């Protein structure tokens, strides 16, 4: 019994060694093939992801800048409306031959200009066409026309 068992163990060990040798050589071959494929794939992947990330970052930057412009544009619009209302309110106190006073403090970074610059009240037979121009901090400018009347 003991002899038979010893013999079986020897045969088993021999088989195991031979199998290990085979699987080692296969793995070596596999590794050899995988190395090349992985390198190409990684290079391609890095290039593609690099391009994508660049595109995403530039898209985010564009969106951010557009959002900023949008904000300033809306502020400019707000300043324009306020300036127009203040000018109209000033002209409501007009009398023939008089002048009106527009007291408007533009927010920091904004400039307001009205054309014509004179503040003479219009005659009762006609209205006065005034062009308002507002320039924002980044140079965004808007203009609008209003008509003033002596009540």
């Amino acid at each position, binding site marked *: 019994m003991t002899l038979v068992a010893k013999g079986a163990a020897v045969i088993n060990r021999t088989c195991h060694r031979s199998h290990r040798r085979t699987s080692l050589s296969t793995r070596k071959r596999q590794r050899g093939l995988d190395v090349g*494929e992985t390198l190409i794939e990684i290079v*391609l992947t890095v290039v593609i992801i690099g391009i994508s990330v660049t595109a*995403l970052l530039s898209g985010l930057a564009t969106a951010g800048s557009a959002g900023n412009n949008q904000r300033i544009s809306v502020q400019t619009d707000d300043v324009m409306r306020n300036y127009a209302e203040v000018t109209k309110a000033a002209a409501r106190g007009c009398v023939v031959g008089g002048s009106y006073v527009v007291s408007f403090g533009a927010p920091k970074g904004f400039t307001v200009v009205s054309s014509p610059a004179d503040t003479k009240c219009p005659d009762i037979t006609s209205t006065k066409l005034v062009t308002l121009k507002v320039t924002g901090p980044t140079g965004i400018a808007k203009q609008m026309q209003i008509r003033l009347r002596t009540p």
Partner: protein
Amino acid sequence: MSAPASHRHEDRGAALILAIGFVVMIGAISAGLMGLVTSSVNNRGSLEAIRDRQYAADGAIEEAVTQVRQVKASALGACALDTGTATSTLDAYAIRVDWQNACGVVRTFDGLVVAQRNVIFAACLDTGTACTDSSTIIRASVNFEQGAAGAVTKTYVQSWSVNQ
């Protein structure tokens, strides 16, 4: 021997597919961002157009009030039924103003009943047809104070409503 080989075959190109998936995802994010920006810019453009149109209508009514002021109603018939139309262009918007007398009477402190010359103005985009309730941008009611000879001495805005 054949199992690892087939595994290897299945895995080929997996990284590339992942990268393409990533590109598609980034593309979707970028498209969403661009959509957001475009929508904001369009909304702002629409709001600016509405503002310009409202101020154009405002200016057109001011112009019409000045014109109506010159229409001297006779001392006796200050409130005769009267209508008229005026047009004006401001900020590239052609505006039509329809006006009509809507006079009333008031009792003075000494018991006299006197007529009040009120005029209602409706401003809309000039399409060649009269302003309707749905097309009116601004509707205003103005009172014209007249002297004994009929000349208007002062105007009072009674109401000024911006409809759209």
